[in-house]
Each structure stands twice: as structure tokens, then as C-alpha cells.
């Protein structure tokens, strides 16, 4: 059964179609990718999935729930987490505090609990802290938990974002260009990490990526879009040999040169 199903998605801004009649699905437990040339509408798809954009038409079914037009925080609570293309950490807060933001939707202590600090609240805080430390350990930076997040290296800041997303206890993890700005070694570690997230934690992954090498290495299913429309779908090999895909990429390159 598909964990995520996108049906006939439509999105337009000021009369301009950004996504046109897009349909695709992500199988439970798989690693899937969404690729396409610059400006193809990949991030817009993510924003529709996570509730930041309201699509004009179409349907999104996630884990048996219709989530289209729901608020982002509700979608996160349903079990979909995301990272951002440009880092969006809470810059002046510590790494651990950043990760703890993910646990917010899985905990419930309100203002009265905060003031009384009764047993349940203290247990909840302790559990939150423990789980978030585990998340940091999983992405490999437990030693930085007390550091202010903006003081970390770029690569480590990326890891904080992943840990933060993992702390929401997601079923599906959306990664928006996770390899952007990483060097070769970091990319290798990223590939390993993506696989570990799926294999060890059982979390389904959908990623947007420019780095073809990385996409081809990790993805089991690839959806290619251009101008907001799906032009190809399949495994790495199928997509690589699809003439439409080659045209979309090469054609685009030629335009840029011209």
C-alpha cells in the first residue's frame, strides 16, 4: 500500500501554473526521489505536501488521511516531517533545544503543567530530552547538544535539521536538497545516513535532489517533473534512459548556454 498518494495536483500563482495535474505515489518503506530541472516546481510540490501552499485542485492522501489544505502543523502531527532547502534552524538556540522542537507535537504539557511542574510534566520533559539526545546520537553529533546551533559547521547544521525532523517521530521524511553544499565525504555519509534512517528506523523517505549521482545511488523509485508536470517515472536505470528526461535536462542546459 502506498504511504503517500498524490492525485491530479494543481497549483497556480497569479494565473501561472506551477504544478499541472501531477500524480505520483510513494510506497511504504521505500526511498523515493523527485527530480527535475531548476524551476520545475519540486519545492512547490513539497510545500503543497506539507501544507505551506494550498493547491488549487487535486488530492493528497497520506497514511489513509486526506491532508490536502490542512495546516502544516497538523500534517506534521500525522507523521510527515521535512527539512528545508536553505537551513531553517532556530539560530540562537542550542542544538538540543532545536531538536526538542520536533517533540512538541508528540507531547502535551500546557501552561498549568509548566507552572506546577508536577510528576507527569517532569517525566515528559525527561523523556523528551532523552529521545532528542538519541536522535542527535543517531545523526552522529551527540557532543554538540549544548552548542548554539548557528555556531556549528554547515554540515553539522544539516544534521541538526535531520535530528529535528526525526524527533517528530515521522512515518515519511521529506528531504529538500539534503546534499546541497556538502563536500564529497559528507555526501557519502549522507547516503549512509539516509539508508540507515529507512533500514533501522523504518521511515519512508522522499527527497528532492540536484546531485544525480546521489539520487541514483539511494533511490528505489524516481519521479521526474518538468514545468510542473510528470514526464517520467521508474527506477534509476529507466529514468536515466528516458528520452524525455534527457531532453528536459539537456534542453534546459542548452537554453542556459544560449
Amino acid at each position, binding site marked *: 500500500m502506498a504511504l503517500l498518494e498524490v492525485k491530479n495536483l494543481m497549483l497556480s500563482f497569479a494565473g501561472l501554473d506551477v504544478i499541472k495535474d501531477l500524480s505520483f505515489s510513494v510506497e511504504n518503506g521505500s526511498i523515493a526521489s523527485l527530480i527535475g530541472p531548476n524551476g520545475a516546481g519540486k519545492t512547490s510540490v513539497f510545500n503543497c505536501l506539507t501544507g505551506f501552499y494550498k493547491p488549487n485542485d487535486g488530492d493528497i492522501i497520506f497514511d489513509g488521511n486526506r491532508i490536502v489544505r490542512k495546516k502544516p502543523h497538523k500534517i506534521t502531527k500525522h507523521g510527515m516531517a521535512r527539512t528545508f532547502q536553505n537551513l531553517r534552524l532556530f539560530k540562537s538556540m542550542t542544538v538540543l533545544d532545536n531538536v526538542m522542537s520536533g517533540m512538541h507535537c508528540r507531547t502535551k504539557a500546557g*501552561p498549568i503543567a*509548566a507552572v506546577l511542574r508536577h510528576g507527569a510534566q517532569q517525566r515528559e520533559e525527561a523523556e523528551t530530552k532523552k529521545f532528542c539526545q538519541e536522535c542527535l546520537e543517531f545523526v552522529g553529533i551527540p557532543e554538540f547538544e*549544548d552548542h548554539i546551533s548557528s555556531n556549528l559547521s554547515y554540515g553539522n547544521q544539516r544534521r541538526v535539521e535531520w535530528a529535528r525532523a526525526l524527533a517528530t517521530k515521522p512515518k515519511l521524511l521529506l528531504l529538500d536538497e539534503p546534499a546541497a553544499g556538502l563536500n564529497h565525504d559528507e555526501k557519502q555519509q549522507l547516503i549512509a545516513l539516509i539508508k540507515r534512517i529507512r533500514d533501522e528506523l523504518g521511515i519512508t523517505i522522499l527527497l528532492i535532489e540536484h546531485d544525480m549521482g546521489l539520487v541514483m545511488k539511494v533511490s528505489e523509485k524516481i519521479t521526474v517533473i518538468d514545468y510542473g508536470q510528470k514526464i517520467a517515472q521508474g527506477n534509476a536505470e529507466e529514468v536515466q534512459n528516458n528520452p524525455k528526461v534527457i531532453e528536459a535536462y539537456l534542453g534546459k542546459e542548452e537554453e542556459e548556454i544560449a
Partner: protein
Amino acid sequence: MADISNSTSTNSAQAVKAGGLMAWLEPQQNRILVLAALAGIALALPLILNNYAMEVMSSVWFYVVLCLGLNIVVGYAGLLDLGYAAFFAVGAYTTGILTSHFGINFWLTIPVAIFFSICAGVIIGGPTLRLRSDYLAIVTLGFGEIVRIIARNLEITGGASGLIGIEKPSIMGFELNEIQHFYYVFLLLAILACFISYRLQHSRLGRAWQYVREDEDAAEAMGINRVGIKLYAYVIGAIFGGVAGCFFAAKMTAISPETFMFQQSVLILLGVVLGGMGKIPGVIIGAFALVLFPEVFRELGSMRILVFAVVMLIIMLYRPEGIWPAKK
């Protein structure tokens, strides 16, 4: 009592202190020592102060409560509220109307005032908290004025002259009618306000406010309902203002709409910003400055707002974290 750190919750371990005082204050036991000493001084002040000085000090504690309440909205949640006096008015008028028109015991009016403050917070905040922050500022300003005009126009609120003859509260037959009594009442309220503020700041909710303040979209993506979280801040701030209003009405025994003008809201905001938004000791300093300045510099009294405004501008330009030092 818990330690009062001037920082946000968790950046203590790797923090490097700027000043010697701050460094000395770092260990928990030193802080508790200072707090205990300060508590002793505050409790003992009535022994050495005359009535006038005590009147002024009660006013200080009173503004500490109001400023801490607004601090939850402005400092913690990062929302500019220019109509905070409206909540203060809701509390004061609830107590005033219930005691003078219906003869209800003062203490029973407090839960009613809290209920109405919550209602006012939800009515004002509910539809408006999703707005951009500058629109929110204007909307809250508008609501503040609306509340004042309603109080001015209605029969039950005593119209423009307001209410007089509000009963003074008593505890088990002991009537609170001297300034010493109110000094301790307001001191107690201020301590309670500090305690609640501190606990809230260092909680799941307090962190959520900080997330939303730093990056609304990222917070939303992490599963935080930003409108709900802001509403919490707004309503809790409203409760602080409402409760302060109850005691204000009881102490003054007379209230009129002029007390709840836009200038009052600005004054409270000044207190929050001067000392340092979001920091409890900073806000307390702000409240002190607010009340003591016109009393100490009587001849500059009419220039009070001008002086504060200049200081506020300088603070925003050169030291946005306020007078109270921040941990690096």
C-alpha cells in the same frame, strides 16, 4: 525557590560570561543567596519606609506584574501588543462592577475577572494572531481604544466618570486598607508573577514561544501550531493584566476610563523594552525605572516619556537585548 537565570533556558553550559557580576551569579547557590537577600530587603522595606515611599514601592510591584504579563506576549512570543491596558481594564472593571453594583466579595471577583480576561484574550487574539506583526500592533491598538470607549459609554461602567466606592478586600475579617497591606499584596503578586513567568519560560510552552519567535515557518513545519501557541501567550498575558486590574481597583477604590488610555499601554511596553525583552530581571528593572523616574526627577516629570523614548531608541539601535546583560 527556583533560580532566576537571565538567559533563555539552556545555553548555560557553554556560556561565557561578560561581566564579573554575571560570572559570580552563575553558580546556583550564589543566585539563591542573592535572591534570598533581596527577598529579605523587600519584605523588610515597610519597616524603614514612610507611607509615601511605600505607596511608590507598591506602584513598582504593581507595574512589575503588568510588565511581566506583557513580557509574555512581547518578550516570549514576540508579538507587539499596543493595547495591553485593555486587559488591565477588564480586570479592574470586573472587580469594580461586581463589588459596587452587586455587592460581591472582592476575592470572588478574581476568578470572574480571570474568566473575562481569557474571553477578551480569545476574542481579540483568535482572529488576529494570524496577521502580520505590524498589522497585529495596529489591531491591538484599536482593540485597546474600543475597550476604553465602551467603558466610557456604558451605564454600568459609570460612564466617563467611572466607578467610585469600590470595596476594599478583607481576609477573614481583616480589612486591607492601609498602604502597608497593599505593599505586601502587590509584592506577593509580583513574586507570583516572577515565579509563573520563570516556570513558563523554562517549559515546553516557553520553548515553543521561542521557536515561533525565531522562525515561524520552521516552527510550523516542526508541528507547532503557531496561532495556538501565540494565543496561549496572549491569554496568559491577559490573565496577568486582569488580575493586576482587580487589585488596582481594590486599592484605588475608584477607576475611570482615563487610566486605560493608549498611553498606559505604551508605558507598560516601555517597561518591558527598557530592561530587556524576555528577561525577567530586565523587565523588573524596567518597571522600577518607569515608576521611580518621575518620583525622583520631579522637575523632569513631564519629560518622562521623552527621556524613556530616547533611551528606548538608543537601546533598539545599539543594545537590542536591553539593559540587563545577556549571556554570550
